[in-house]
């Protein structure tokens, strides 16, 4: 060897594989304004559509008069439910087994519901047309409070369901009832409560909120009458699912539907579902024979496309007097709005809410969820969340603090006492999950040591004494959150969407010169898949990440996948990528053995090629193997170097983390300051630490927003009053706290590379940390639970209600 021979470290570094803080390759175009988003798609002769929306939360539609609208220059068509009925598309199926009006069919059920679709030659004319459509309504009494949904005298919302006592998920108790979902052992849990030394009970609400991607939902639909083909460019987190749904409901053969999700400006769950805009644009294209674009504005996005959360969780914990939990009982009232458009795996009406036992070893638990209809926008989606895991984590993390308060125990100590122990994994939870791996005690202790938790508690005690002496008007709170997530939906044994198992896929094609393309069934909306997917392949097969192009989002070229949401991409697609890469590697090994004239078993993989065991100078690089794959493969072997993998995960993955929020609140104004926020995440094997850090920063910022003010609020008569960023809290860099990140690594035992997924962890774990900090600050004044969001005036009100402000 001479000095020019790269060292093993240099060869590994040259790959920029797993563990490397590789810069995001997609950012080169994003930061230079060279992304290609849906609104950048401009097709010849393209028309624009926009909606007439209902000003009423609940009303009968008596008449729609489009005659004046059609006189507006440029307006070509006004599509109503009657038009859609001619193609049997006035209603569409939801992912939750319900049906949803595409356009108001006789009634409107929420404010800003889509009533008519005006198609014009440009966007301005479409809007001019909207203002000329005259809709005659007869107002009906609105149902706003979900707790009144099943009252005997509650208004009938869904006339299409009158008399139907069985819904998609079993019996319905009332016409506004959607489903009741129960899990766990009721008898055993009731018995645990009877025996308990100590119990707590609290109604913990997680308010309605909404994802806010930079880019709203949009599409361009283009129907080619000659070929009978429909091309849809759209902001889809799951393009293949959209293709299948369109094939099923529009009766167009699936091979004649081309769904293309180009660059997407954020999703956060908002872009999983199918929305009326997509159907109307498609029908408008079929009707006019021209491409039709639909682009939602921010008000429409916040008020009409799917919301998130709106779970009202009556939570009870049973425990011994020394703080060992013995039972958990939760009843959830879930407000789904006018249609159950929940974006969950089909058999899970409340998502994976049964992860609600959290990180704790509950011997028994029982859960019941009742879903109800109200006159609000339909949903809900998993806002940076794996299907109601955020709600579950908030529920249990708040409940543990409440229990600690009742027991007069430190909440950290209570958690340490009840954690599932490292040796208990794989752990079977009382509500039916098999946790793959974890080391909770280590993570918790690392958090406590790094933050100086004991000293912070001491400072808090001093501050409280000073407050009581009248020396300060600030109160201090410490918010702990120790969450366990369940992500990577999911194994075909329990997860499907409309009957399609929730696998994911990858196809790798290596070219002769040692470069290649990987096509994947996931779809990045900013997560950086083009960067990280190439890193997995780089480490697996020894080709530099820079030589691997990653492509997603085009259903004609990408293998069928279930898309990106619920932190499923790394657990599922990431596994498919590793498995496809291993198939490439296996064939490469056969080619190398042939070229090096040894038996395959005599070869070992060495960073970027194969080496003959015991003969280190006999080496063939992957780059050379790629070339050989196209000219000198062993006799009987097909040339080429390609592989496909469809990966059906054997289990979910269970990322976890320990967070601490330190907050000071001025009781006179309610103004809070997040003094410190520490987030330790364990997402198993870390593919790109820089991207993980970015994900954590983003998720914590969203968690901060949600906990401290971000709310979709309706007034008592059903008007949505948070329709713009003036009132829907969207923090800027100025309001956003500084984030400290940390990690432990507990690989998933069943995942090919041990990775668990991280995108949603900070949102799941962040919200309880903020809320617990606020609640902890006020607890010494006598409160047990203060509902979110914790904005300034509500903090002041809490202080006032507790007698701390005159």
């Amino acid at each position, binding site marked *: 060897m001479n000095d020019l021979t790269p060292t093993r470290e240099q060869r590994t570094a040259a790959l920029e594989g797993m563990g490397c803080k590789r810069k995001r390759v997609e950012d080169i175009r994003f930061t230079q304004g060279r992304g290609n988003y849906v609104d950048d798609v401009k097709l010849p002769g393209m028309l624009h559509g926009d909606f007439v929306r209902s000003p009423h939360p609940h009303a009968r539609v008596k008449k729609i008069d489009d005659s004046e609208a059609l006189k507006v220059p440029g307006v070509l068509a006004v599509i109503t439910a009657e038009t859609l009925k001619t193609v049997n598309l006035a209603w569409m199926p939801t992912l939750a087994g319900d049906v949803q009006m595409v356009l108001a069919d006789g009634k409107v059920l929420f404010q800003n519901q889509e009533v008519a679709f005006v198609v014009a030659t440009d966007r301005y004319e479409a*809007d001019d047309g909207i203002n000329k459509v005259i809709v005659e309504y007869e107002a009906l009494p609105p149902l706003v409070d979900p707790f009144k949904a099943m009252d005997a005298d509650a208004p009938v919302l869904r006339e299409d369901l009158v008399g139907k006592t069985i819904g998609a998920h079993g019996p319905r108790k009332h016409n506004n009832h959607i489903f009741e979902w129960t899990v766990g052992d009721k008898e055993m849990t009731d018995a645990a409560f009877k025996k308990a030394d100590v119990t707590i009970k609290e109604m913990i609400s997680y308010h309605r909120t909404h994802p806010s991607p930079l880019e709203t939902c949009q599409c361009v639909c283009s129907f080619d009458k000659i070929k009978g083909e429909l091309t849809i460019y759209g902001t889809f987190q799951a393009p293949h699912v959209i293709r299948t749904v369109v094939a099923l409901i529009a009766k167009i053969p699936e091979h004649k539907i081309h769904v293309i999700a180009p660059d997407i400006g954020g999703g956060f769950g908002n872009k999983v579902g199918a929305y009326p805009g997509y159907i109307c644009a498609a029908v408008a294209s079929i009707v006019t024979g021209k491409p039709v674009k639909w682009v939602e504005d921010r008000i429409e996005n916040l008020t009409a496309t799917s919301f998130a959360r709106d779970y009202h969780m009556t939570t009870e914990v049973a425990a011994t007097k020394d703080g060992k939990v013995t039972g958990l009982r939760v009843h959830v009232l879930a407000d789904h709005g006018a249609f159950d458009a929940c974006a969950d795996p089909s058999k899970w009406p409340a998502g994976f809410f049964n992860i609600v036992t959290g990180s704790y070893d509950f011997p028994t638990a029982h859960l019941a969820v009742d879903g109800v209809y109200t006159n609000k926008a339909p949903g809900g989606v998993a806002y940076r969340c794996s299907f109601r895991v955020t709600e579950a984590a908030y529920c249990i993390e708040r409940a543990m603090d409440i229990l600690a308060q009742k027991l007069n125990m430190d909440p950290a100590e209570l958690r340490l006492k009840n954690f599932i122990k490292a040796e208990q994994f794989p752990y079977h939870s009382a509500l039916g999950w098999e946790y793959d791996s974890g080391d909770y005690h280590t993570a918790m202790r690392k958090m406590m040591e790094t933050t100086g938790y004991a000293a912070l508690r001491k400072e808090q005690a001093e501050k409280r004494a000073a407050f009581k002496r009248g020396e300060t008007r600030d109160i201090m709170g410490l918010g702990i959150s120790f969450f366990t997530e369940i992500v990577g939906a999911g194994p075909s044994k329990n997860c499907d969407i409309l009957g399609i198992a929730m696998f994911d896929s990858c196809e790798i094609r290596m070219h002769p010169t040692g470069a290649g393309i990987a096509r994947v069934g996931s779809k990045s909306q900013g997560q950086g898949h083009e960067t990280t997917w190439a890193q997995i392949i780089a480490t697996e097969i020894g080709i530099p990440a820079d030589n691997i192009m990653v492509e997603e989002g085009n259903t004609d070229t990408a293998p069928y996948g279930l898309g990106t949401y619920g932190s499923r991409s790394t657990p599922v697609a990431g596994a498919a990528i590793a498995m496809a890469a291993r198939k490439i590697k296996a064939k490469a090994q056969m080619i190398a053995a042939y070229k090096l004239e040894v038996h395959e078993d005599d070869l070992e993989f060495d960073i970027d090629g194969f080496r003959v065991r015991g003969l280190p100078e006999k080496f063939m690089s992957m780059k050379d193997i790629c070339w050989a794959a196209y000219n000198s493969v062993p006799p009987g072997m097909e040339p080429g170097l390609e592989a496909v993998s469809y990966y059906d995960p054997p289990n979910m993955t269970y990322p976890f983390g320990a967070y601490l929020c330190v907050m000071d609140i001025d009781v006179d104004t309610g103004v809070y300051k997040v003094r410190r926020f520490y987030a330790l995440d364990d997402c198993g094997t870390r593919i790109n630490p820089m991207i993980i850090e970015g994900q954590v920063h983003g998720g914590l910022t969203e968690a901060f927003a949600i906990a401290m003010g971000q709310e979709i609020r309706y007034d008592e008569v059903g008007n949505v009053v948070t329709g713009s960023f003036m009132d829907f809290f969207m923090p800027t860099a100025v309001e956003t706290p500084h984030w400290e990140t940390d990690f432990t690594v507990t690989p998933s035992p069943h995942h090919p590379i041990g990775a668990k997924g991280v995108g949603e962890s900070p949102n799941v774990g962040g919200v309880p940390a903020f809320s617990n900090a606020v609640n902890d600050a006020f607890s010494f004044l006598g409160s047990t639970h203060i509902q979110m969001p914790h904005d*300034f005036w509500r903090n002041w009100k809490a202080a006032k209600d507790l007698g701390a*402000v005159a």
Partner: protein
Amino acid sequence: MIPGSFNYHRPASVADAVKLLVNLGEDARPLAGGHSLVPMMKLRLATPAHLIDLHGITALKGISRDGGNVVIGAMTTQHDLLASEEIARSAPILHETALLIADPQVRYRGTIGGNVANGDPGNDMPALMMTLGATYRLEGPGGVRDVAAADFYQGAYFTALEPGEILTSVSFPAPATGHGCAYEKLKRKVGDYATAAAAVVLTMASGKVATCSIGLTNVHETPLLATDAAKAVIGTSLDAASLKKAAAAASAIMAPAADARGPVEYRKHVGGIMVTRALQRAASVAK
């Protein structure tokens, strides 16, 4: 969020702008920075048939000193105010307040004239102008007239501007040397209107308040001058009792709407706190 169609005019002089406003009548609106009008147009809550863009009138821009008065052209942007040494020297409260208006992008476009002329109770400059004893110059078909800021605001979006009139400049006497000032604004986030805000300009003599003026933002349908609150502290050393009296007097004239910023009681309560804090901070910087 797509505006209706409108005609666009860009006059080069105030006289031409006035002529257009007079000729086009009620359907015409002058356009300054556009931060209030354009969003309303996008929601079609405002549907002017004609927009008269004032950006072409160079005479409307600039900051100058006229004897003891500071004169600011209506089309001077918030950014211009922040960049002005004259403002930093003679009216630091204006600098401080401009910095609390939204974000740099907004301040590059937003103008002082638009901010004070629109009559939006959420805007920060009107209460400040009242506190500084400013006068607005209005030019219209009937000629030029000066109106005190304190007499200008009649209700939310209702002002003393007559049809055809344009607010062309604001002027105020430079506060006394050694004065203290503060603008305390409670807001939920950058870009938000105040939940409540208070402007204070005062002078101190021998440890006691000699003169004081207090303005209030977004706690009433118009900006307010809190005269009784100011009276309550004159002659005092801003002791706890006087501050309490001032806050109570200020709260007494507040009539905010309940909105997402909080219920009426909260907004009045924090309005009083803003007055207290502004008084204390102004006194601490007075010489």
